[in-house]
C-alpha cells in the first residue's frame, strides 16, 4: 500500500486504493481509476481552501476473484499494510467492521447525507446495504440487477406476437408470469420443436448470489434485522429446490449442467438459442464484445430482459442487488490516521460523472439520483431499460455468517438438482446443517 509521507514544501499525501475483482484493463477499471480524477479535483478544491497539498493516487485494480482478494486484504490489514480505501462488496461490511479493519463513515443515514453533497445524492435505500450495527460503514459505488433474459426470436417462432413479447417484462413485474409459467413456456417450445431439448432455461453454471433470487421469489426470508439473525424458511426453500429439480426433469435444462465453463455458457446462450437464462446486467457488455457477431444491436434484436419472475402468482418479480462500496480502512489496518481525508476522497469519487463513467462502461446500474438524468447514462439504452429494477431489489444481509448460510443452501440445491436427494430431504439436510454450523445465529421458519 502507499504511505502518507511528508516532505518539505507542499504537503504530499498518497492515498491508496484496492479494488477487487477488477482487471486493470477490464470494464471495471474505473473502480480504481476514478481515484485519480477524484484526487485531482480534491487537490484543486483544497488549494482553493488555502491548503497547499499534493495528493497522489495509488490505485490498484486487483484482478483476483473476490475470495482471493478478501483473503489478501484481511492479511494485509493484519500486517498494517492495508490500503486507505478498499472497494469490495457491501456484504463485507459486517465482517470487516467487526474485525476492526474499516472505520464507520457516519453514525446514521442523516449524518452521512449531511457530510458531502455527493453522499446526499445517493439513492436512499442503498444506504441500507452499508448499514451495520446502526452505523454507516461505506459508500455505495455501483449496483446491478440479475435479470431473466429471454430469446425473442424463439418466442416469435413459438407463435408469440410482438406485443405479447414486449409485454412480458411487465407481466413479470406484476406477477402474472411466474416461474411455473416459465417452465410451461419452455416445455411448450420444446414440444413445438422450436427449442432444442435442454435449451429451455439456463441458470448460471456456478455458485453465485443469483440463486437466492428463487428462494426469495418463493417468499423466502434471509435475514431478520431486528434480532440480527439469519433466517431459513422451510417451505420457500422446498419450492426453490423443487423448481431446480423440475427444470431438469421436464427437460428444459440439461442434466449435468453445473460446472459448465463460463466460456461455453456465454457462447451457448448468445449463439445457440436458449429460451430463458439468468445473468447479471454486466454480462450484456461482455456479450456485445465477445460473443455476438453483430454487437449490441444484435443483442437488442434477439433478447429481451425482465425481472426474475416470482414463484407466487400476483407477487412482483425480484432481483438481487449487490452494491460494490468504498470503505475507509482503520488506523489499525493502515498504520495511518488520515481517515477524514480519505472519506473526503470517497466523496469526490462519488461525483456523478465519475460514477456514470464507470456504470456505462461496465454495464452497472446507478446508485445516484442525479445519474438517472445524466445524459451519458440515458444514452446507454440497456442501463436505462433496467434502472427500474432497483425498485424490486433486495440485498444480501450484512451478517458475518451469511457466507456459510449461502454455501449450505447452494450446495444442497446442486445435489437436489442432480437428483441425489429429493427436495424434501434437501430441506431437512440444509436445515440440519445450518443449525449445526451456525447454531443460534440462524432461525428456522
Amino acid at each position: 500500500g502507499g504511505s502518507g509521507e511528508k516532505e518539505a514544501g507542499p504537503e504530499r499525501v498518497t492515498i491508496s486504493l484496492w479494488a477487487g475483482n477488477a482487471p486493470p484493463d477490464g470494464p471495471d477499471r474505473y473502480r480504481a481509476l476514478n481515484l485519480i480524477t477524484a484526487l485531482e479535483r480534491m487537490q484543486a478544491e483544497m488549494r482553493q481552501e488555502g491548503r497547499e497539498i499534493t495528493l497522489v493516487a495509488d490505485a490498484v485494480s486487483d484482478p483476483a476473484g473476490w475470495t482471493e482478494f478478501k483473503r489478501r486484504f484481511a492479511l494485509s490489514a493484519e500486517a498494517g499494510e492495508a490500503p486507505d480505501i478498499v472497494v469490495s462488496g457491501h456484504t463485507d461490511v459486517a465482517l470487516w467492521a467487526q474485525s476492526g479493519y474499516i472505520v464507520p463513515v457516519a453514525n446514521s443515514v442523516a449524518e452521512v447525507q449531511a457530510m458531502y453533497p455527493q453522499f446526499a445524492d445517493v439513492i436512499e435505500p442503498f444506504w441500507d446495504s452499508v448499514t451495520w450495527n446502526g452505523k454507516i460503514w461505506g459508500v455505495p459505488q455501483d449496483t446491478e440487477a440479475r435479470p431473466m433474459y429471454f430469446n425473442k426470436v424463439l418466442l416469435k417462432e413459438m407463435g408469440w406476437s410482438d406485443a405479447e413479447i414486449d409485454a412480458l417484462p411487465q407481466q413479470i413485474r406484476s406477477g402474472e408470469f411466474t416461474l411455473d409459467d416459465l417452465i410451461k413456456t419452455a416445455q411448450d417450445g420444446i414440444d413445438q420443436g422450436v427449442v432444442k431439448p435442454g435449451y429451455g432455461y439456463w441458470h448460471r453454471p456456478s455458485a453465485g448470489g443469483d440463486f437466492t433470487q428463487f428462494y426469495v421469489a418463493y417468499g423466502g426470508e434471509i435475514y431478520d434485522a431486528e434480532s440480527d439473525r439469519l433466517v431459513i424458511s422451510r417451505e420457500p426453500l422446498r419450492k426453490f429446490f423443487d423448481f431446480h429439480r423440475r427444470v431438469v426433469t421436464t427437460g428444459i435444462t440439461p442434466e449435468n449442467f453445473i460446472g459448465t465453463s463460463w466460456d461455453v455458457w456465454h457462447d451457448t446462450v448468445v449463439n445457440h438459442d436458449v429460451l430463458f437464462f439468468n445473468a447479471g446486467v454486466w454480462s450484456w457488455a461482455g456479450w456485445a464484445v465477445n460473443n455476438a457477431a453483430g454487437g449490441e444491436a444484435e443483442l437488442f434484436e434477439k433478447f429481451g430482459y425482465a425481472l426474475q419472475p416470482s414463484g407466487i402468482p400476483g407477487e412482483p418479480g425480484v432481483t438481487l442487488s449487490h452494491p460494490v462500496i468504498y470503505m475507509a480502512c482503520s488506523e489499525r489496518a493502515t498504520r495511518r490516521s488520515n481517515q477524514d481525508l480519505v472519506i473526503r476522497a470517497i466523496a469526490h469519487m462519488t461525483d456523478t460523472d465519475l460514477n456514470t463513467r464507470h456504470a456505462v462502461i461496465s454495464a452497472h446500474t446507478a446508485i445516484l439520483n442525479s445519474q438517472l438524468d445524466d445524459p451519458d447514462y440515458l444514452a446507454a439504452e440497456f442501463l436505462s431499460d433496467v434502472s427500474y429494477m432497483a425498485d424490486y431489489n433486495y440485498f444480501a444481509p450484512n451478517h458475518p455468517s451469511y457466507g456459510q448460510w449461502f454455501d449450505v443452501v447452494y450446495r444442497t440445491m446442486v445435489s437436489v438438482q442432480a437428483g441425489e436427494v429429493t427436495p424434501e430431504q434437501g430441506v431437512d439436510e440444509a436445515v440440519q446443517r445450518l443449525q449445526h454450523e451456525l447454531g443460534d445465529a440462524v432461525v428456522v421458519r
Partner: protein
Amino acid sequence: MRPKILFFKSVPIALILVISAPILLGYLWVFVRTFSVNMYGMRPIGGFTMRNWMTIVRDPLLWRLAGNTLILATGLTVGILLISCAAAYPLARMTFRGRKAYLSLSLVLHAFPSVTLLIAIFFVLRFIAGIPVIGRGIPIIGGFGYNTLGGVILVSISFLLPLGIWLMKGFFDNVSWDLERAALIDGCSRFRTWWQILIPQIRPGIAALGIFSFMHGWSAFIIPYTFMLDDRTSVMSTYLNLLTSGDRAIDYGLVSAVALFQLLPILMFYIFTQKYLLTIFGGGMKGGG
C-alpha cells in the same frame, strides 16, 4: 528378425502415444485456441487472429512480471538445490544420532497442507518483516519478511524441502564409497568432497530437483499471491489470475496465449537441463561398493 525388432521398438512408442493422447490433444487445442476467435471442439470458429499474441508482446507489465518470476524461480531453485544437497549429504553418508529421525520428520512435515499453514506462516513473516535489513532491506529480492520476494522464496523453499532432502539422499546413496574415500585421501575436506566430487555424480538428481523446483517457482501462485501485496512487483501467475478470476466472461484465447507464453521458458529450461544434467558419468570404478 527384422520385423521383430521393429515390433519391439514401435510398441512402446505406440503405447506412450496412446496414454499421452489426452495431453497432446488438450494442448493442441490450447495452441489453436490462441489463434482463433472461438472454437467448437477442435474446430476454430470465427477465423484466425493474432490479437492474443500481440496483447502479450505489447504488454510491458507482463515482461516485467516475467522478470520477477524468473527471480523467484531461480532463487527457489538455487536455494532448494543448495540446502537440500547439503542436508542430504550427511543424512546419506555420515554417522550421527538422530539421522533417521531427521529424515522421517522432514517427510512427515509435508503432511501439513500448505494452505492452512498460510495463516501461521503469516505470523512468522510479519515478525521477520520487523527485523531491520533482513526484513525489508535487501536489493532485488526485497528482504525476507512479509510482502517481499525473498520471503516468498523462503516459504516456497520450505515447502519443497522434504522433496529435496529425500530425493537427494537417494542419489547420494548410490555414489561409490571408494570415490569419496579417494577424495578424502587426496586431501579434500568433507565439504570439498561434497562439492567437487559427489555433487557431479548426482547430476541426474540435481536435474530432477532443479526442473521440479524451477517449474514450481515459475508457476507458484498461492504463496506469492498471499504474501506479496502489489501486483506490479508480483509474478506471472498472478497476472494470469488477473485474466481468469471472477465471473466475468473469460477471454480464453488470451488466457491460453499467456499460458503458452508462460510455458515457453520452462520448456527451454527443461531442454537445457536434460542435455547438460542428465548425461551421467560412467567408468573409473569396479566392484559393487
